[in-house]
Structures are given as structure tokens and as C-alpha cells.
């Protein structure tokens, strides 16, 4: 089940999963990850791709933050903030859903 109730900000224990409507993959001709869905194409920047690749329904937000902090060492606080912000935006766009 996915939540359809009023949105609340991501919490450390939440798990996100890609909206099944979307196809997420690496696209060599764009040199980027893309999201493909009915009527749309989104080219993702590297960070966005890194985050969506990890929205697999298993990793928690805390796991995700940990992995991204390792991948982008230096400013843990900024990475954490970025992940939370991105998740919120992606969910609002309908790309990912929070698992209930």
C-alpha cells in the first residue's frame, strides 16, 4: 500500500518506492538517469538519480542519507538536508511514493 493521505515531511524511518508508473533507467544518449512515464520524460541530475535509485522500498531515509553522505563526503549536514528536500519534492511530483 502507498499513502494517499495528506502529505507530511519524510521521517528517518520512512521507506520510499518508485511510482510503478515510472520507468527509471540510465540513458546513454543523455549521459544521465531518466524517468519515463506516460506523456513525459525527465532527465535527472546526478544527485536526483542517486536518490531515486535508492528508493527501492527497502532502504529507509536514514539508510539513504548514510549512503549519500559516503558518496558525497565533506558536508554531512548539507547532504542530509538535500536528501530530505529532494524526497519531499519528488513525492509531490508523484515520482516516488511513501510506503505505509
Amino acid at each position: 500500500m502507498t499513502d494517499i493521505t495528506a502529505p507530511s515531511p519524510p521521517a528517518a524511518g520512512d521507506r520510499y518506492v518508485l511510482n510503478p508508473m515510472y520507468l527509471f533507467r540510465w540513458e546513454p544518449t543523455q549521459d544521465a538517469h531518466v524517468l519515463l512515464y506516460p506523456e513525459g520524460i525527465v532527465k535527472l541530475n546526478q544527485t536526483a538519480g542517486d536518490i531515486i535509485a535508492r528508493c527501492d522500498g527497502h532502504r529507509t531515509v536514514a539508510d539513504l542519507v548514510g549512503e549519500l553522505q559516503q558518496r558525497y563526503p565533506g558536508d554531512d549536514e548539507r547532504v542530509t538536508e538535500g536528501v530530505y528536500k529532494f524526497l519531499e519534492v519528488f513525492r509531490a511530483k508523484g515520482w516516488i511514493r511513501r510506503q505505509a
Partner: protein
Amino acid sequence: MPKDGSVVRLDGQGKPLWLVLELTYRCPLKCPWCSNPVDYARDGEAELSTAEWKRVMREGRELGALQLGFTGGEPLLRDDLEELVADASALGYYTNLITSGVGLTEERLAALKAAGLNQIQLSLQSSDRELTDTLVGARAFDLKLKVAHQIKAQGFPMVLNVPVFRHNIGQVADILALAEQIGVDYLEFANIQYYNWAMVNRDELLPTREQIAAAEREVQAARERLGDRMTIYFVIPDYYEGRPKACMNGWGSIHLTIAPDGAAMPCQEARIIQGLEFPTVRDNSLAWLWNESPTFEKFRGDAWMSPTCRSCDEKEKDFGGCRCQAFLMTGDAANTDPACSRSPHHHLIGEAIARAHAPGRKVQPLVMRNDGNSRRLAQGGQGGGGAGTGCGSGAARVEVDHV
């Protein structure tokens, strides 16, 4: 058909991101707003073969195409559809089937699923059985509903496409309820665009501004009620906007359509522009057609624009509107789209609206899309509409199915 509501958050970088294959113009239905050419039944080249379509898809991927639409006519009339879908999936496309639903069975759905089809766009014309069947000229309503449920049962993402015009614009609330019950993911109310068959029937089909406003209010209420559950698009009619649509994101910018006979076009309507040639994939590589053919080059950039557009600060946003509409209504495809309030031809839009709603206007029967009407319209020199006339004048001479 790629829509004005389409989302492309990505600069095409000169790549044909969106490839649309019109597998056939044949269709069991007779929609009098159909966007297929009015003269589709004229004797012409044969449809591309399976092998030829496969070559097109391969070359499209090489050029960077990502989205692939199978449409028509009715694409299910091609019995190689499953084979083509399988090929497209293997090539890495996101595959869309755009269908009336006629010809879709449990077996074919399962085969399409196995072939890797990503999504299905089903058209529905009304929430009312009788009205649907009358409008499309066949018993289709029950079948469409059954197919809609089967599509969801097979787990396909589904777009329900509702072409909107005078006869069904009052049913928006009922159609929303029906879509909710089916479990539609995307519901698209597409105010029809007035080319081809829709242009022939424009006086009968064009809704009023008040009708559109009322429909939009229903949509807004539903959006608030349904939240994330269903995405609802409402494609506005440019006749009432004062602003043109950013047609196809610009001519030859990201869209490439291949007609049943292999003609390469920047959009599905482009063939109505007289004086342009549409070379085919039978004689040319897709790369040449896209990158070098004079037809695709013709309206790229802004050198071709009228002074009205070239000096306008909106030109990067709407590219001067629709070339087909400019041609149909003004006789010159390079003119500013008359839907734009800055166009010197904008009064033509007002006149069309006034004509369609003139007090005491006599209701005419709809001219159904069928082979007989198609041949007659083609003969009358109305192949897609002569300049300026908007082909409405052809209506008197053609055979009328019923309604």
C-alpha cells in the same frame, strides 16, 4: 498523440525524443473529430511493413528517441503490433499504445504485457452509452469499459483520453466518476484541436466559453478531492485563450511522427500544409529526414517567423504557435498562429466562434469519418482544408452517415 500537456523537463539537444508511429489509418470507428487526414482513404502508398517499422525504430533509438507511441488509425488492426512492441522494448523505448480499445482482448493484452508494453492510452468519448455509440458510429461503449477494466487488471498504467467538444463537455463530472471507478491513473480531457475532421465539423463541435469554464471548475474540484490518486489534465482550447499553444515544443524540436506510408512529419497534422514535401523513410534514413530534410528545417529557429513573432518576447515559449493552424486559417504556415491575440488574423478565431454559436444557427448532421466521406472530401479539393476556408464549406457536399 503527444499533448500540449506533455512534460518534457529536458532540452532535446536537437534529438527526436518523441517518436510516434502511425501504424495505419484504418479504423473501425468513425469519430467526426478525428485528427487523421480528411483524405486518408485516397489511394496512396502501402503501409510500411514489419521490417520497415523495425528499421525506423532502430534508427530512432540511434538518434536518441526515448518515447515511442503506437497510434493510428487503430494500431490494433496491425497483427504485428505485439512483435513491434517487443522489438521496441528490446531497443529501450518507453512504449505507449494509443487505442480506441476496439480489438483489444484478454489474450492480446497478455501478449502485449509479455512484449514489454509500458502503458496504454484508451480513448473514451462519453459516460453515456448511447451518446458514445452515436458519436463514434459503432457500438463501442460497453467494449471500451470492459477493456478499461482489463487494462487495469493486467497492471498497465492507463491514461484515459477524453476528446472534449460540445456534445460531451457537460459530462465532465460523470466521466470523472467513471474514471475513478475504473482506477484510471491519468485522465486527460483534451479539448479537441480543429484540424482535419474536427475542422469539417467545427460549427457543431466547438463549445462555448461558459461551457469550458464550467468543465474546468469540475476538474478543479475533482483534483482537490482526489489528490495524488489520479492526475487530471485539462488541455485548454486555444480558441479561447488568446495565447497559442507551444505546439510540439517547436517544429522539428523533439517530435517525429511517421505516417502509415512512411512519410516523416514534425507533427501528426503537418501534412495539411500544402506546398511542403514529406519524404518517406522508404527513400531516406531517419537521420537525414530529421537533421537535413528541408521540411524539418523549414520552421526551426526564428528566421522564418513573421515580424509579429520575431520581435515578440514570447517566442521562446510558444515558438509562434501552431504552423498547421496558421496555414489552415490564414493560408500561410509562417504566419503567427491566429489563436494569438497579437496575430493580425486573430479576428478569424472570433468569427469562427461567433459562427458556431450564431443565434438561430441550424444544427447540421456531423460528417462522420468514413471512406466515402473521405473520398468525397478529397475530390472536392478539401484534402485537409483549403487555405482560409477551414474546409467547413465542404460539409454540405458530403454523404452523412447518421446522427
